[in-house]
């Protein structure tokens, strides 16, 4: 693909990302100041969890609700405190806001819908319930969120650099495939920490599980996805390199795939 075309595509997706980020902000306030998250388990939280979460995640948060057996990917088992989408470093617990964001935004390409259908009060009420399923939250606190470095612009040079990282330095293609379809040679062997087969993400769909903005994608490279084979590259890559990789994987989105 010619760099010019690549740039046009990235431009388009950045615009889309900005729009979706704006939309997301309107449905899901992301900061603690916007929502008041309770620290204790409440009756409302228990009821909300029982009615809307336990059918998949199970009454005790083990990811074994009655609907779970026919689902792939499997609903998250909360007992290990391993949360994929965080602003905190690899291995850390998530912040309450991270959990709130996933509840409100949902996880694309999974049965975890955006639960914006519930009131804000209901959504925050389940956070202490989820945390109560894992001892980790009793003995540890989440680390401070990672610092998001100054974003780069998606220039031709940044994309070329990102491509190099994807293809040579980190060999992301081994799992995610050369074209980013999640079909690399090692794709079939991947397993998550719970022993379930896990598919490397297909970038062409454009439905990034942790959010579609460039910052969301950048965060995945920086924090990794706990409980999955996707590590953090905070050490291996500089801040700048992570931005380059971000723009490169976003350039792999295929508009025709996103319409499905």
């Amino acid at each position, binding site marked *: 693909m010619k760099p010019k075309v690549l740039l046009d595509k990235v431009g388009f997706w950045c615009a889309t990302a900005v729009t979706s980020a704006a939309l997301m902000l309107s449905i899901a306030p992301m900061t603690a100041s916007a929502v008041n998250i309770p620290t204790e388990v409440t009756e409302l939280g228990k009821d909300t969890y029982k009615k*809307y979460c336990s*059918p998949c995640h199970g009454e005790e948060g083990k990811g074994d609700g*009655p609907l779970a057996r*026919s689902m792939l990917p499997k609903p998250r088992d909360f007992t290990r405190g391993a949360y994929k989408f965080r602003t905190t470093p690899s291995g850390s617990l998530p912040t309450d806001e991270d959990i709130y964001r996933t509840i409100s935004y*949902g996880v694309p390409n999974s*049965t975890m*819908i*955006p639960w914006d*259908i519930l009131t804000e009060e209901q959504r925050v009420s389940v956070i202490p319930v989820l945390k109560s399923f894992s001892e980790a939250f009793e003995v540890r606190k989440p680390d401070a969120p990672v610092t998001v470095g100054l974003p780069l612009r998606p220039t031709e040079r940044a994309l070329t650099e990102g491509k190099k990282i994807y293809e040579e330095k980190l060999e992301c293609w081994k799992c995610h495939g050369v074209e980013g379809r999640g079909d690399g040679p090692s794709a079939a062997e991947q397993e998550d920490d719970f022993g379930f087969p896990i598919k490397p993400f297909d970038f062409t769909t454009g439905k990034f599980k942790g959010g579609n903005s460039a910052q969301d994608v950048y965060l995945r490279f920086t924090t990794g996805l706990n409980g999955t084979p996707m590590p953090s590259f905070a050490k291996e890559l500089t801040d700048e390199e992570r931005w380059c990789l971000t723009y490169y994987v976003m350039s792999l989105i295929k508009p025709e795939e996103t319409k499905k």
Partner: protein
Amino acid sequence: MKKFGIGLCLSAMLFTSVAWAAEQPPKKETPPDLYEGTPDWYRAVYKDNVGMKEGSGPFKDYFKPQMLDMYWQPNRHYEPMKNLDHSIFIEKERRDLCVTCHEEATPGVVRDWRSSGHKNPKSTPYLSARTAEIEKRTNRILNEVHCFDCHADTKKKQIRMPTGEVCGECHRPQFDDFLREREVGRPNHIQSWEANTIVPWYAEAARRGYLYGQHGCDLCHSGAEKCDVCHTRHKFSAAEGRQPEACITCHMGPDHPDAESYGESKHGVIYHKEEEHFDFNRPLSEVRPGKDYRTPTCQFCHMYEKHGRFIHNPVMKGIWRMGTIPPKNLEYTSSLKDYPYGIKIIGDKIDIYSEENVAKRSYWLEVCAKCHSDRFADTYLKSLDEFMFQAHTLADRAQKIVEDLIADGYLYPSAADRDPYPLSDGIEKQLSPAFLGEPIYNAFKTLKGKFPVVGPILGVYGMFLQQQDNPSNIENMYNRLWFWYKLQGYKGTAHVQQDVSWWWGQAPMMMEFTKIQSEAARLRREGRIEKVSLTK
């Protein structure tokens, strides 16, 4: 200028909507009802929702339904899932979330829907025209028919399994055509669940612990309320419903080998050889024989009504009615002469030459004439009639042998010494003389089911429920003769499949007949020997 432009746009929009409203006077259509015209007791046992509490039909109190029945007969038995309360999605009409979740939970369903006319009801000129008709009729704009439209019961705020009534809200002409199946009575599709559960042996088998053994019955006979039997979920394709394969999951096997007889006939073989040339996207009324179809399909012949018109049900032209009902046009020696023996709930004998049936035959000839000469087609169909007369005559002779044996007291074990007719206690309790017919009702009342029942239609129980010594060997033989081999011969002949006509039909009918003769001779001989030894 800008304001002027906006004003112009607004007034144009207003005008359009006024014009639309003026063109579409709100019509009050009666809502589609699958049980329209049926007596009240009928609704009470087939339509009113009871969930899993009781069964269907007059004998509903004798068995609890199996859970699958909620999918087979949603009106009667559907209960929303308990695991996840969907009411919040319905209350807030969050259509987007249906797809978001089910795209992953049940991706096949969503992909089917995405490729269906429901997702894109205006994707082709043909679909657009049909959609425009529906829009006009329903006074709605239809750019997408969504999960929500069919599956959300907005009154009860729960998920529903759509029945034909839901489809009929938009597809009213097709629904009304389907409803017309009642005009010709059973066997038909719309009363197939009734046929399944009104028969006493269904409830008796369930009572005796064989409910799940009747799974095979339920799968076909569940076609009564739903359209996805022919137009499978969630494409609901008209083209799919026009293919012979749409019929064959039910229309096969020993009592109606339609798949086998059509499939291996010259018609069927040509279809299989050249199916890629068949244009199933064309409505039946626009099919050009020889160009769009080189041979007929089940639908092309059976859904042809008359005078170039097609109807959205395949039973209207049926004359021989699946071959089970004896014709009026024969002299019978057995009690078939008294068929239907005063029973009110089954159809009378068929007069093949009644005004109505002669007219139906001419409509058949209209179809055949697309490719065959009138004389050839007429001769062929007359030979089918003759085949049936001969087959019914043979059945009559066989029935006479069995009945004489019974009358002379040689049936062994005798009806008094074996299990009674299925659910005899229930028949006496649940049905009335007015409903069932005086003579049969009285027989059940006085003899408590301890009497032999042979031949069409109630004698077929032995095909569905075998109890202690009931029916006996010779009765089973006769059942095979008239219910299997006669019907197989009928289908083989009607669908022009020589092997089915002979080796599955005429030949085993004759073999079974001689077996019945020799079994009767043996029983008589043994009976006589027993009598002699008892008198000594």
